């Protein structure tokens, strides 16, 4: 194989810094911003939640973003190859993340496919008077109890195929012509559509009641440890850290790039969108509460229940423009979802390209196609909803969060590389990283992530998640968690055929250029 291609190869690059930022923001802004943040904030102190939330953003979210950008930028590789020069066994973290991206991509695409169908259902509010029955029985045809696949549901399968075709075509066009161009359209589009939605929602009768529920501060909440876990959890999951996405995206940056400044913009942009979503969702929910004469707490929920049950119900009762409101809401879910799915698939494709030297086209066809196939075979089924729910819960709690914990401990305590990485980031960033960055990553983040994992593990052992049967959870939950770890170990044990570069020599060129440019 052409060895010269590995060290200083012609790696693709983002066209502009704005293009990279759009892609990074598009990845961070996903379904969780729209359907998770509003409820989490409301449920954890309302207006008072802002305090732990902002502290979490500054002591975990942005420092982790900077860490991932720096690793990707310094070592110029997707997750596994970027960890390789840190220490050979550390590449296992990267493969772990790749395997998790594979799992998440398979079901994340399914939820986007639902949103695609609901964008259609919004015309004339085809979900009727009982959106819950419509979702579960008419649309998903979900079986009564969790289990393994029995039969397929065509209404989910064909939009799912569509979602995969669009995503893979974008990734196949490459970083600059595919991912960057798509996000330069998606992100402004998403913001404009969502702003129209929010403005409409704010003019609904009862909007103030909803906002009052969201922003009334319950200051006692900030003495509750669970509220702090919720704040750190929201920041962590919402920013797409721990997936290897930001490492992968940063590996396509130019040699001189402001990493810290970019992380600040991406972090604040993600939170800004969440806040906007909170305002939009609660204004809408307030309308419903006032119309039905019930409390906001009886209407509001999160996740699938909010998007596919509560919102359809509310849309059906709107005094006017119901179809437009539905199109905007589900259209936003689709756009936010696809821009995140692209980034998840990019991790898998880039990692395989780095590892095998495959060209982009074949890599997308084989790996992206394989991921799509797994998604299409498993999820548009009567049992798909349960498999999705279990896999999502377990891979987030014992995959993404745990990998985040292992990453910060490995980089800061085992390999002691934070100093090197800080110097690298400082060489090309306008805002210098000080000791606070090292402290957040070596002390605060490990404690919080460890606490989060321990806390959810305790709940897990007390009772089965969603009361699903143990046999089912052992496969769709724990089975998936263990399978991704086994995959990571196996991939690490297989030696890289091409000469693997060691830490300093590999990137001496890159680092020197950056540093001389600085001085």
């Amino acid at each position, binding site marked *: 194989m052409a060895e010269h291609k590995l060290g200083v190869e012609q790696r693709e690059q983002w066209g502009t810094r704005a293009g990279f930022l759009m892609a990074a923001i598009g990845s961070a802004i996903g379904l969780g911003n729209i359907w998770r943040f509003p409820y989490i904030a409301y449920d954890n102190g309302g207006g008072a939640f802002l305090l732990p939330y902002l502290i979490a953003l500054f002591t975990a979210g942005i420092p982790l973003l900077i860490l991932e950008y720096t690793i990707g930028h310094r070592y110029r590789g997707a997750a596994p190859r970027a960890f390789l020069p840190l220490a050979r066994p550390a590449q296992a973290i990267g493969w772990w993340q790749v395997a998790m991206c594979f799992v998440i991509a398979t079901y994340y695409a399914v939820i986007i496919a639902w949103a695609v169908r609901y964008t259609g259902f919004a015309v004339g509010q085809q979900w009727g008077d009982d959106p819950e029955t419509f979702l579960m029985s008419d649309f998903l045809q979900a079986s009564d109890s969790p289990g393994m696949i029995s039969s397929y549901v065509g209404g989910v399968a064909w939009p799912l195929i569509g979602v995969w075709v669009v995503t893979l075509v974008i990734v196949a066009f*490459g970083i600059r012509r595919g991912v960057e161009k798509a996000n330069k359209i998606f992100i402004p589009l998403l913001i404009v559509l969502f702003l129209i939605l929010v403005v409409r929602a704010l003019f609904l009768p009862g909007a103030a009641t909803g906002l009052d529920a969201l922003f009334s501060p319950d200051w006692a909440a900030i003495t509750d440890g669970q509220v702090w876990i919720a704040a750190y959890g929201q920041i962590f999951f919402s920013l797409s850290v721990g997936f290897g996405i930001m490492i992968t995206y940063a590996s396509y940056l130019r040699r001189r790039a402001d990493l810290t400044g970019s992380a600040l913009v991406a972090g604040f942009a993600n939170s800004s969108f969440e806040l906007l979503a909170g305002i939009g969702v609660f204004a809408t929910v307030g309308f419903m509460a006032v119309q039905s004469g019930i409390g906001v707490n009886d209407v509001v929920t999160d996740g699938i229940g909010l998007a596919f049950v509560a919102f359809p119900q509310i849309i059906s009762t709107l005094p006017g423009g119901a179809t437009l409101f539905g199109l905007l809401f589900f259209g936003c879910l689709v756009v936010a979802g696809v821009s995140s799915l692209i980034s998840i698939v990019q991790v898998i494709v880039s990692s395989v390209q780095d590892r095998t030297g495959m060209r982009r086209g074949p890599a997308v066809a084989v790996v992206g196609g394989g991921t799509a196939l797994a998604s299409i075979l498993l999820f548009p089924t009567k049992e798909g909803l349960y498999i999705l729910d279990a896999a999502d819960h377990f891979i987030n709690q014992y995959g993404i969060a745990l990998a985040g914990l292992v990453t910060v401990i490995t980089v800061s305590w085992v390999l002691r590389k934070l100093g090197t990485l800080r110097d690298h980031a400082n060489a090309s960033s306008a805002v210098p990283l000080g000791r606070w960055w090292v402290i957040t990553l070596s002390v605060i983040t490990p404690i919080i992530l460890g606490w989060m994992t321990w806390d959810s593990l305790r709940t897990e052992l007390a009772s089965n998640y969603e009361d699903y049967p143990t046999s089912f959870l052992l496969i769709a939950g724990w089975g998936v968690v263990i399978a991704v770890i086994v995959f990571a170990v196996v991939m690490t044990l297989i030696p890289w055929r091409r000469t693997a570069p060691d830490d300093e020599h590999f990137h001496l060129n890159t680092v020197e250029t950056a540093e001389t440019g600085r001085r």
Partner: protein
Amino acid sequence: MSTGAIIMLLVSITLVWGGLAASIIQLRRHPDPGPEPEPDGSE
């Protein structure tokens, strides 16, 4: 809306959206150096 809620709404908007504006301004003040000799963006 209660006074407490209005204050927290305004504080949230100011801090989060203000933070975004400030970080964008900060980044724009420090443009990255011009394009390097480009590797091909396509293949």
